[in-house]
């Protein structure tokens, strides 16, 4: 299982802050996990679509599309940050 977290605009648009998902066969990177979630359709497809300003962190470190994802990881999706 992988723990998914969603913050700010993404949390609101997806209607969820956190969930646990099983990684299907072949889903082993940030890019493939994103594609797997987009395949749910509806808001998932539009909110996570390519070209949307989106950041991903794996185990609380900023990640890129090629970053590996494995069972037990915490993967967070969020918009570009706006603190300070």
């Amino acid at each position, binding site marked *: 299982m992988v723990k998914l977290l969603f913050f700010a605009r993404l949390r609101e648009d997806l209607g969820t802050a956190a969930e646990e998902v099983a990684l299907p066969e072949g889903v082993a990177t940030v890019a493939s996990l994103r594609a797997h979630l987009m395949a749910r359709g509806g808001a998932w497809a539009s909110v996570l679509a390519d070209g949307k300003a989106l950041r991903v962190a794996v185990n609380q470190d900023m990640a890129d599309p090629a970053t590996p994802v494995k069972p037990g990881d915490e993967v967070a999706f969020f918009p570009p940050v706006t*603190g300070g």
Partner: protein
Amino acid sequence: MPTIRIQTEDFDAGAEIAKLRAGNPKVGAIASFVGVCRDINDGESVATMTLEHYPGMTEKALAKIVDEAIARWRIIDVTVVHRVGELKPTDQIVLVVVSSGHRGDAFAACEFLMDYLKTRAPFWKKEQTPEGARWVEARGSDDEAAARWVAGRKDAA
């Protein structure tokens, strides 16, 4: 030892500065920055603002940014305080304080810390305006400000 705090309550910049240099005769310079909530953003008046963050990652990201500053400049100590929750215009949002032997290191590290905090620490602002609530969009100018440090143009000599 750097101090990093995420809190809902206000902070006292004077007290934090006093704490940072208390009893340390090696401190010759202290630079500080306070970010404050404005009443206008992108042409809309802001009634209140809510700051959300990613507990756990926020502290980790800030610690990493502070470590980078310590590796780059001759710094004695650093304090970073960032508020979360509901804020209104005139409220303080963020405090960065850097102590060092000389002002050059303190000024540079303080600006670097703010530039990196604004582009790498997981905070998000949502504003309540007369037109309704809206998430603040990230600014390209913040990315440019952070990128200057990567190029090394602003490094201390």
